[in-house]
């Protein structure tokens, strides 16, 4: 008995869905990484006692982040449609999902990075200042490298959250594993698709988490 015979839908569907998911998660994750870290640095240095302390900037930034964090992703997905059209040039498909995914993941990731940065020993900042480091030197040589294990751990959590959010991207016709499970597994009562998709998602999350944890362990133990 061959494998194709036992599958209710062609295996290519799974393959395409996996590629869609990886594409959405990978690209929006990369965008969140690039945008989230500077945002977190800005939050830290403008916080009271930071070296660019500015309560107003800090408060405005914090409010914007909280606003995006408070909005459920499915709502964000729809609410951001005009922006998505502007940026991606389309409101359907993978690229249409990447814009809201990145926008929802960035504040989430920024908050995690902020916590890691805040936990950097103030003695190290003081030492760097005493050694003649300028502000940017402190960010580059002290804040970011010292917080790296926390940042990597936070990025792992963000990627897993993105895998979960991307299931909702089917709402804008972006496809992906979650969409497959909903359309076949839920709407057509195809339990096999549901089980396979869940298994693939579990595997995907496990791999991401394991790589992240391994990297963090390596960073901490060197």
């Amino acid at each position, binding site marked *: 008995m061959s494998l194709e015979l036992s599958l209710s839908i062609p295996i290519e569907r799974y393959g395409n869905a996996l590629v869609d998911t990886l594409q959405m998660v990978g690209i929006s994750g990369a965008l969140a990484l690039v945008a989230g870290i500077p945002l977190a640095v800005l939050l830290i240095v403008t916080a009271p006692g930071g070296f660019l302390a500015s309560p107003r900037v800090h408060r405005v930034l914090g409010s914007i982040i909280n606003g995006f964090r408070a909005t459920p992703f499915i709502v964000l997905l729809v609410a951001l449609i005009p922006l998505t059209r502007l940026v991606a040039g389309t409101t359907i498909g993978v690229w249409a999902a990447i814009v809201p995914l990145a926008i929802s993941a960035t504040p989430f990731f920024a908050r995690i990075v902020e916590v890691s940065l805040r936990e950097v020993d103030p003695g190290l900042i*003081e030492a760097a200042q005493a*050694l*003649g*480091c300028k502000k940017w030197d402190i960010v580059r040589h002290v804040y970011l490298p010292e917080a790296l294990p926390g940042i990597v751990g936070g990025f792992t959590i963000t990627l897993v959250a993105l895998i979960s959010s991307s299931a909702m991207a089917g709402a804008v016709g972006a496809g992906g594993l979650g969409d497959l499970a909903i359309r076949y597994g839920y709407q057509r009562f195809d339990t096999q698709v549901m089980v396979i998709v869940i298994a693939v998602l579990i595997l995907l999350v496990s791999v991401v988490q394991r790589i992240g944890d391994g990297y963090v362990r390596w960073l901490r133990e060197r």
Partner: protein
Amino acid sequence: MELSITARQSLTAPSRPEAEHDAAAQASAPGGPWPGSRPKGRVALRQVGKTYLSSAGPVQALQDIELEIAPGSIFGIIGRSGAGKSSLLRTINRLETPTSGRIEVDGVDIATLDDAQLVQLRRRIGMIFQHFNLLSAKTVFDNIALPLRVAGVPRQQVEGRVRELLALVGLEDKADTYPRRLSGGQKQRVGIARALASGPEILLCDEATSALDPETTHAILQLLRDINRKLGITVILITHEMSVIREIADQVLVLEQGRIAELGPVWQVFGNPAHPATQALLAPLQQGLPPELLDQLQTVPPSGLHERILQLQYRGGDGLEPDLLRVAQALGGKTRLLQASVERIQGHTHGQLYIALADVTGSPDWQALTQGPTAIAHHIKELGYVTRT
């Protein structure tokens, strides 16, 4: 551990970056606000005061601090915790800003420096810390290289200079190790190497040995003294341990509740502590009469055989030393040395002898034995009598 200072020439004439990479530093003349000859590392504090605003109201951390630190000297600041030592030290490289008064480094009021000049000032003032404050994500090499890299020193020069510094602190084989794999003493050596990287004239030590065991403390203090002697760097250290001051400092400032309690050469302050704070800090170093003798002590001579207990004090100065033969002759009886603690600090002897004196009756004029060329001690005190057994 025996430490040798190699490559002294290159350390005394450090490879200070010729070309600063940021425009701000380029705008100011080479050497920044310090024109003319090479700066020496003279620090002066003029009526420095610092007030913190806490929830309980203003707190006076420092008040009327007036002092001058000679170039090339080792200056110790001691005080109990909360005395303001840390704040005082941090005003020198402007990690803290005083609320009143001025701080001058080689004649320049550091409050007038702009950001770029402040960075330059800090490159001339190294600093080491109680908890070392090494960057855990960088190797020993990269920790030491950091001050050079941020100053824009070319790569090849960084390599050579870091190797020199590693040799100076005796850690040549640890270049690629991460700090968490080092012992406390090794971490502090890295801290010292990092602080010396940009060739400073002043080294600030913030409780640099407080987290170390006695043996390591001694080794680190030796290293600091070596650096001070051979490189001529002014060392300013704060500590709560008198033994640290005694071991390496030339001058000592005793700080008590943010004010100067005492200031002077170590031998003078140790020999004749005038302020209660100094006396309290010195107490652990001084041995009094053993408890079992104290218990037997009587104020009037007991009938029968007895001895007088005398305390002979030496406070340094006048070249006065405990000359045992002269002491025995001058006291004129049978003298027995019960206990003594005598130290030489900077060539001055101080401490005390406890002597049991028998076969002397009446009340001899002890004060006469403390004056003139025939003096046997700076001060003689009759503590009482004990019965002879």
